[in-house]
């Protein structure tokens, strides 16, 4: 991986409108996001020769998107997957470009996540849940049918062993909601959350209240990856990929077998080795936040905060704009929108470019940024970005 350090870059990012009911197909959302990313990069559709996407049977395919942009690409790829798929597909795009099979790749995630197939709220049949997971028949008969419950089993034990409290989860939520108040495109813009309000909200499923769950939104996001050399022809400020770890897994296919480990524990050492930097060097972060606790666990896994100090770190306001590690500065999936992590990638690219310069949204020090993905406790990927 050392030989690709700073050799590839994200040169375009874009999104569709974000709503609870788009009234259009995922294909139209994807086209809107793709056109926005192309405009951002200063590229034309014909400049893209690779199209890739991930979905959970709820989207359109990359061939369709290329077709309706009026181009015939060299490479199309669609994969089944949720969180951390963005990082994996960026790694694949780099591999394709490195081996001369593509020049410039557009990656998108498009979903009517609220009005169409909902991830946590009954979008899947019970038979599909029982058969789809390794060991599905050992959880579904017991009422564990939602990611909030699955991840909650990890959270309860981890919080118990590490002295983490409800209030620590609350600091993740209130920090991200605070960011959303500066982002007019965030779902919870104009809806701040106080700690008092958070602490008086009932659990949907312990230890999570509704604030600890990510949103559901109809939206598409797109990003464009190319070589740093080719990026010189783009009008955007390229954000270089310093290092990445595409996707790692835990030691067992069944993720409750060892609740004390998560995939991010394996991703982190490889990530820093590939990037040639240390966790202390990271100044701004996009941390996958399908649930508040997932952020706490990743801060620990990626060494961004020493184990045992995560609670104090978030209580001191360090995830906020003036903290030590401003995180999910557009509001994250808890309060901005939800595209299986890709909206967090868009935001970190904009921060590293310093696109918000002169406004209260710009993080002071953005020299080195981390962006993490989490499919579940069992699968994760991440990358480190710089200008």
């Amino acid at each position, binding site marked *: 991986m050392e030989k690709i350090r700073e050799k590839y870059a994200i040169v375009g990012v874009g999104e569709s409108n974000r709503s609870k009911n788009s009234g259009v197909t995922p294909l139209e959302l994807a086209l809107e996001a793709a056109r926005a990313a192309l405009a951002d990069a200063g590229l034309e559709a014909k400049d893209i020769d690779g199209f890739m996407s991930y979905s959970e049977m709820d989207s359109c395919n990359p061939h369709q998107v290329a077709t309706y942009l009026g181009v015939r690409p060299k490479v199309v790829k669609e994969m089944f997957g949720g969180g951390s798929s963005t990082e994996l597909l960026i790694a694949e795009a780099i591999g394709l470009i490195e081996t001369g099979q593509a020049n410039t790749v557009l990656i998108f995630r498009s979903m009517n996540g609220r009005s169409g197939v909902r991830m946590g709220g009954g979008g899947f049949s019970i*038979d599909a849940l029982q058969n789809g997971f390794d060991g599905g*028949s050992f959880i579904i*008969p017991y*009422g564990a049918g939602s990611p909030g419950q699955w991840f909650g*089993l990890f959270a309860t034990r981890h919080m*118990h062993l590490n002295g983490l409290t409800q209030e620590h989860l609350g600091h993740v939520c209130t920090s991200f909601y605070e960011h959303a108040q500066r982002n007019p495109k965030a779902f919870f813009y104009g809806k701040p959350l106080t700690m008092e309000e958070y602490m008086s909200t009932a659990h*949907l499923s312990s*230890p999570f209240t509704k604030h600890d769950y990510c949103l559901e939104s109809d939206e598409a996001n797109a990003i464009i990856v190319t070589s740093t050399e080719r990026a010189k022809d783009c009008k955007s400020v390229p954000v270089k990929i310093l290092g990445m770890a595409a996707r790692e897994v835990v030691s067992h296919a069944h993720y409750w077998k060892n609740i004390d480990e998560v995939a991010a524990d394996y991703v982190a050492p490889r990530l820093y080795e590939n990037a040639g930097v240390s966790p202390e060097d990271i100044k701004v972060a996009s941390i996958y936040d399908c649930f508040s606790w997932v952020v706490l666990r990743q801060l620990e896994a990626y060494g961004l905060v020493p184990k045992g100090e995560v609670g104090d770190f978030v209580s001191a306001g360090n995830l906020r704009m003036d903290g030590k590690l401003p995180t999910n500065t557009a509001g994250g999936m808890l309060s901005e929108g939800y595209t299986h992590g890709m909206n967090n990638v868009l935001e970190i690219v904009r921060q590293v470019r310093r696109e918000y310069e002169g406004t209260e949204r710009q993080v002071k020090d953005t020299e080195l940024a981390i962006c993490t993905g989490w499919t579940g406790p069992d699968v994760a990927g991440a990358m480190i970005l710089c200008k």
Partner: protein
Amino acid sequence: MKEETKVIYEKPIPLKNTYNAPYWDAADRHELNVQKCNTCSNYNHPPGPSCANCGSIDVFWENLGSTITGEVYTYIVSNRPFLPGFQNELPTVIAVVQLEEYPDIKIIGNVLHGNTETVSIGTKVKMVWIEATEERAIPQWVMV
């Protein structure tokens, strides 16, 4: 003529498949059957086509009987039904239980009649079987 009360089990019943059938067949008889590896001696739960610890195909089933105790390794208390049938049993305690005599086996189930006040990590429980239909029984946990 004596008529008996009919109880309709509304919750999802485990789907048997190639790998898990010996577990659920034993559950129907109110017994715990767990897959074990002959090569590395690890228990495999959930079961699979080969040992999830060492990859050996030399796996077999060990019957652990009907007296099963353990303690809560982790748990959640769900106040919202995410699956059918649970609306009548809120709050639902979903727990990962570590077996007392076989600590490398952890089994997920509900701690019946449990709530936020009574269940915590370390709570002692024992396995019971709930009749779902005339043919099927579901292992569950109750506090001891």
